[in-house]
């Protein structure tokens, strides 16, 4: 039985992943902002087989509260075998272009608050000398693109932070997994018309995540083909890239 902490547990990918762990009988502690959603998710995971499910409120942007919430989670779970960090916003690129405040707010939520959480968790896990930190970053962080570079900037920061953290924690037996999903079918995206072939089901992404955790992979592109899509995008020459609206 594994002890699992999920931060941002109401996100679609996190919930799909939690269901797979529930089926294995895991002990879960869930954190997210919306308590009524958490309550419903917790009841569901319990029925699906989790040996215990607890939850409490968490706000990414209330950085001063992070330590307290995480210490509470440790009290409940004891050792943490897996921590999944899955919260964030999709961001509004147009609004971020028009307003520096909004752009900085996006960065605050998607990068700075994650760095805060990771710093606290890293120190705990380093002492614990085991465990896996799985962090949802994004393919958007691989190259700043005109359609979502504010979001991409934050994700690039998270990716770089995790790369360094991974090497630091390696020495104490703690593993870091950077997860880079492509387009995923979520309540935010099902109402947008997107090419169906490119949009992954969260249930499939969740399977990829738990497999990557089991195999202790360093980086996961999910679905797999995004790895090659991103290699292509990274290598587009600027003379061409600048003319696109990717």
């Amino acid at each position, binding site marked *: 039985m594994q002890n699992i902490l999920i931060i941002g547990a109401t996100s*679609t990918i996190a919930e799909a992943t939690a269901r797979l762990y529930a089926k294995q009988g895991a002990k879960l502690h869930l954190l997210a902002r919306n308590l009524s*959603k958490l309550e*419903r998710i917790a*009841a*569901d995971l319990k*029925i*699906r087989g989790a040996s215990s499910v607890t939850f409490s409120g968490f706000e990414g942007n209330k950085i001063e509260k992070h330590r307290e919430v995480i210490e509470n989670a440790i009290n409940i779970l004891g050792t943490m075998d897996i921590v999944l960090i899955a919260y964030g916003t999709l961001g509004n690129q147009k609004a971020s272009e028009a307003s520096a405040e909004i752009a900085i707010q996006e960065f605050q939520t998607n990068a700075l608050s994650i760095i805060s959480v990771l710093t606290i968790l890293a120190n705990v896990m380093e002492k614990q000398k085991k465990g896996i930190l799985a962090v949802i970053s994004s393919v958007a962080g691989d190259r700043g693109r005109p359609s979502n570079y504010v979001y991409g900037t934050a994700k690039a920061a998270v990716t770089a932070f995790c790369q360094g953290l991974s090497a630091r924690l390696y020495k104490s037996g703690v593993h870091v997994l950077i997860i880079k999903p492509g387009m995923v079918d979520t*309540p935010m995206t*099902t109402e947008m018309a997107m090419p169906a072939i490119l949009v992954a089901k969260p249930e499939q992404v969740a399977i990829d995540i738990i497999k990557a955790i089991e195999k202790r992979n360093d980086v996961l592109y999910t679905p797999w083909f995004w790895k090659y899509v991103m290699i292509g995008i990274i290598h587009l020459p600027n003379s061409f890239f600048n003319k696109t609206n990717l």
Partner: protein
Amino acid sequence: MKMHGWGRYPIVDAEVFTPTSSTDLQRRLSLHSGSITPRGLGRSYGDSSLGDKMLSTRWLNHMLTFDQSTGILHCESGVSLSEILEVFVPKGWFLPVTPGTQFVTVGGAIASDVHGKNHHVAGCFCDHVKYIDMILDGERMIRCSQKENSDLFHATCGGMGLTGIIYSAAICLKPIKSAFIDQTTFKASNLKESLDLFAIHEDHPYSVAWIDCITGGNSLGRSLLMTGDHAENGELTLNRKRRVGLPVDIPSALLNRYSITAFNTLYYHRIRGQVVNHHIHYEPFFYPLDSIGDWNRMYGKNGFTQYQFVVPKEAGYQAMSTILKTIVDSGKGSFLAVLKVFGKRNQNLLSFPMDGYTLALDFKIEQDLFPLLDKLDTMVLHYGGKIYLTKDARVSEDTFKQSYPNWEQFQSVRDYYEVKDRFTSLQSKRLGLN
């Protein structure tokens, strides 16, 4: 975005809402003034779940409570039957009634009041529903059951989603000792033998026949009848076989009289003896087609429709053989058709099953198909039968109203709860329910 049912006919352009909670759902209903079509996994074949504005229960997929002592599961309507099986079979519980696919939602199973191979002993899905929580608009969430708001309950069960959004429901699971089924296959060389076999084996909880719709003459209605009982031995395990997909549309020309005849003959002769016993997992027993993902692409890019009718027992052999002969003569029959004997009908206003014989078969969509189906409608009506709305994409208003005499009562319940203009579908408009 482009949307269609399982038959991939018709295809419409629609806006799709995907609420994530009851609060979110109610907020959207109050923001949106026009009419809405509810949709689950889109497994109804025709246009029952289609409209300009559709509301998908995709994200309303949480299990809310489960009572270990009674087996009552209360869950949101977007939970699928396959998820229920995955969670509960290992714990020794099974669905009280299941249709031929597990990829339907609880909401869809209620809206279609689906039946299964055990209809003759267990009735329809809704006969095992304790209560339903309905969302009627931005303010009203109403619980209905056999006792409470029973008019709304009997209209909603089998009501094709036209009485409001089914938010959640409590269903009674049944205990099992094994995930396996003791199956017996009997060979019947014509229709008379097929119907007799059903009568002889009516004590088995599950029975269904795969019937040949191509071969006529003395072999008209030859079939393989399968009966099943939940096994007493075997583990409570899930099926580990991987599903294969059908990634492309099969050119519809490949499905012709010759290929189908060959298939039917092979299928019939697959069973050599007159009686064969098997101990098989519930998945291949209940859901043989679920192992092929997207099998609906088999009928080509124009799509297909499934024609399922029921005729009363009194009309019996006479009706079945006349209709079957018309299908065989047309040469348009599909791979396999399913024949089943129903038990008694229930109180739900638009539920399909009634004491009698039902036959279901697929037809690929082609120009000269519709006149044939109209002809079959006339025959079904003549014998006092009806067509299953969940499979339908083309029945006329007249045919519907003659064969579903409770339609007026259904409308008055919709009027009473003020939902008639709120919840519609392409089908409801075609059938004159709006």
